[in-house]
């Protein structure tokens, strides 16, 4: 059951082939067996089971829900169960994240799942802890493109609690199964061919382009000339908004508060020092620097202007007849932890987000679709970028691609079933060594 699509499971539930509680138990059991992967930070077992019970009731009568983030609420309204907060999710039925510069798409690519960042303004941010209000979007992680479309269909639409959501009614997201791609025009941005791109990813990118071409699509090279400025631009805007959004964490209304009583200022300073880690503190200090009166024009305003240029790059490309852009999502497969910690966070995210963050600055929809395993057996995904509010078209193309490449989706249950004890011991010992 855990290997099926959302629709299949939904049908099974409706037909009584499996009850919500049974399904919930299966999930909980798998979570327990794969505990060594540390995928879940929190497992809300009791809550999940309770919700499963309520779900069983609901199959019979109507339901009025309490307060939650709008997107969570919408899912709950549709009968979803909240399994808990995930660390990394590679086998869920569907999970929510947030995507500000690629933080849904990047993990998706590295873990071999589908990661969708909808158009900015399509999905409510009410209840989403903000990082960069003008770029944040709830991100959707699923096993297949169809599931992502299903979830998007539930989540999209105007929310009166979020003034940045569009008013226009949202069409449904049932994806056609595309067979003929001859009318499609795929754009390949040349500036995305960077030296740091691993040869494996590069070759998969080429292969994908050729795949479209061979099936009749038009594949052309395009230019996004301001790409090279996007990292710095993003850095200025991101840290500025972060500095602003973090100002509310003063320990007074909620959260950690330290014991200093000398004065309010002293309490704030100590609380924030203790409560924020190095990375966050660094961003806050940078952001405040850029927002100082004497710097505002040269940094913040300038970055806004550059952002406009970057967004216009995409507009121009789409206006020239391109339907969808095809790019890598990440520079390479997942980097081992030991390698990862060698670079500081700023460099790391600068490198890691290079393909994904321009999309956030332009507010466009983008989806990462797993393509193949690397030589090391780790997943690699590619990214499709669509026109604003053409999320359905984007996902249609992604679905076609997904069908073509037949990525070997991990079937954890089977693996666990076959060699559970061996696996547990081996993987556990590996993680201990690291």
């Amino acid at each position, binding site marked *: 059951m855990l290997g099926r699509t959302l629709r299949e499971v939904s049908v099974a539930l409706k037909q009584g082939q499996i009850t919500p509680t049974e399904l919930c138990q299966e999930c909980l059991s798998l979570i327990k067996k794969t505990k060594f992967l540390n995928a879940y930070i929190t497992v809300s077992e009791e809550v999940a089971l309770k919700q499963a019970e309520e779900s069983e009731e609901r199959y019979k009568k109507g339901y009025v829900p309490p307060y939650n983030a709008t997107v969570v609420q919408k899912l709950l309204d549709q009968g979803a169960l909240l399994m808990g907060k995930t660390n990394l999710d590679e086998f869920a039925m569907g999970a929510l994240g947030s995507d500000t510069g690629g933080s849904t798409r990047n993990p998706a690519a590295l873990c071999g799942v589908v990661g969708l960042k909808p158009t900015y303004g399509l999905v409510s941010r009410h*209840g989403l802890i903000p990082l960069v*209000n003008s770029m944040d979007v709830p991100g959707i992680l699923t096993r297949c493109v169809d599931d992502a479309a299903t979830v998007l269909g539930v989540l999209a639409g105007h929310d009166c609690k979020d*003034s*940045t959501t569009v*008013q226009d009614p949202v069409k449904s997201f049932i994806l056609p199964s595309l067979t003929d791609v001859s009318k499609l025009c795929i754009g390949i941005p040349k500036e995305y061919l960077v030296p740091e791109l691993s040869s494996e990813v590069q070759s998969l990118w080429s292969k994908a382009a050729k795949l479209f071409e061979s099936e009749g699509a038009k594949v052309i090279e395009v230019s996004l000339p301001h790409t090279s400025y996007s990292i710095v631009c993003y850095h200025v805007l991101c840290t500025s908004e972060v500095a*602003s959004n973090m100002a509310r964490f003063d320990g007074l209304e909620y959260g950690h508060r330290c014991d200093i*009583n000398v004065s*309010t200022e002293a309490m704030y300073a100590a609380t924030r020092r203790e409560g924020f880690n190095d990375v966050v503190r660094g961003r806050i200090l940078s952001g405040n620097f850029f927002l100082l009166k004497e710097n505002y024009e040269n940094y913040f305003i300038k970055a806004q202007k550059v952002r406009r240029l970057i967004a216009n790059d995409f507009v121009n490309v789409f206006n020239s007849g391109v339907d969808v852009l095809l790019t890598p999502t990440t520079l390479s497969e997942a980097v081992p932890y030991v390698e990862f910690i060698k670079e500081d966070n700023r460099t790391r995210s600068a490198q890691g987000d290079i393909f994904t963050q321009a999309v956030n600055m332009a507010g466009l929809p983008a989806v990462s679709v797993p393509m193949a395993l690397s030589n090391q057996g780790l997943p690699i995904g590619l990214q499709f970028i669509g026109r604003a509010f053409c999320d359905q078209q984007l996902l249609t193309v992604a679905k076609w691609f997904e069908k073509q490449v037949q990525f070997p989706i991990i079937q954890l249950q089977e693996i666990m079933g076959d060699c559970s004890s061996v696996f547990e011991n081996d993987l556990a010992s590996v993680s201990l060594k690291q």
Partner: protein
Amino acid sequence: MAAPVLRWSCPARRWILANIDRGPRHGRGSPTGSRSSGKRGQSSVAQQPLATAQKPRKGEHQWAAVVGLEIHAQISSNSKLFSGSQVHFAAPPNSLVSFFDASLPGTLPVLNRRCVEAAVMTGLALNCHINKKSLFDRKHYFYADLPAGYQITQQRLPIAVKGSLAYSVFVGKNRNQVINKTVRIKQIQLEQDSGKSLHDDLRSQTLIDLNRAEGQLRVDANISVHHPGEPLGVRTEVKNLNSARFLAKAIDYEIQRQIEELENGGEILNETRSFDCKLGCTVPMRDKEGKQDYRFIPEPNLPPLLLYDSASLPAGADPQQVINIDQLREQLPELPRVTREKLVQQYGMLPEHSFTLLNEVGLLEFFQNVMKETRAEPKRVTSWVLNTFLGFLKQQNLAVSESPVTPSALAELLNLLDQKTISSAAAKKVFEELWRSGGKTPAQIVSEKRLELMQDQEALEELCQATMEKHPQVVMDLKKGNPRAINKLIGLVRKATLNRADPTVIKEMLERQLSS
């Protein structure tokens, strides 16, 4: 084309020069800000009549003050500006706080339509230009009553700009000389209010109520002084004044303080001060701001606010989603200036009286209701309402709505007076009684206290005659030309009538009888 332009501008210049030669003028307002200026302080620099040909030079002994007011006015609405929580005066602390008001992460501001309408209407009433596009910004600073660490305001592009307000000042011994002035309104902006801080010095703690600060009006005054002709001086800000009286006192004090400081060779610091109403002086506030950098950024969760007028309204627009400035303009109530002009026109009222009528809440309505039910002259009604009625209210510190005397009662009283059923003096007594014991009608009081004027003319004639016969000495004095004698006679007759005769009538009768 150059020559004609030059020629046009010359006469104007000459005019200005002529004025300077003739004497000091009222200081002009400064180029920016809503300012009103005037010469203050020592009588030696009191305004000189324009006719004098005195030449003031560089104004070493003259000071001009420049005052700018920042007025915080709470909008009358059912819910707050950005959150759905309700607004109730004097609610228990923290009982009207939504997740957004407490700045819980993930909450977003949603603009309240009624507040935008109120801002537009205020802008229209103050002759402002309404910006069809205005923007929201975040103003950052840390303070316990600001849970988000920033305030949402309109710094870059507010909703209304460049307005004006014409007003009148009454001067002179009887405060009946009118000077008409205009003050400029720089801008009107929508912004969030902070919470309320309550300092508990005993326990060294501060308590925060996030219902939002109460008090419908708060004013910060910016004050500087300079010599006319020289650049503006350094300004200080006096914060949190919440009555017109304290505002005036604070400004007067601060102007004086600055002049004295500068004349003693000191300098004015660009600082924030508060007004100590007990001591009647301004004092520096704890320097929590200094040179604050508010690190403004655009509020990313609120798109630009777009307003329309009938010309620009998109076809088929949902009226729930748009605000039409022209529609709001039509809904504006009659502005006070217009009302006052009408009163002067309709009733021949003195301008200063029209001000008084409008400056007291409910008084105009009271006046109009009395007018509806009485045949008495408007001037008499005005006098009774503004002097007697208002006097009683002020004495007991009551609002018009708390008055024990209804408009109908006063109207009835004035009718009795008008019909000469009672005398003026009697009317005052009736009014007193009306005030003290609500419920009785004027007619009842008149009859209870036997205050009706004598209607029987013959009987009065007889009384006059009789009184004169009883007091021949007074009559003698009168015939000798003693002016006070007549009053004494009148007094005697009145007493005899138990005060039920009009002194004017008595006087007439006596004089007639004496002359015959």
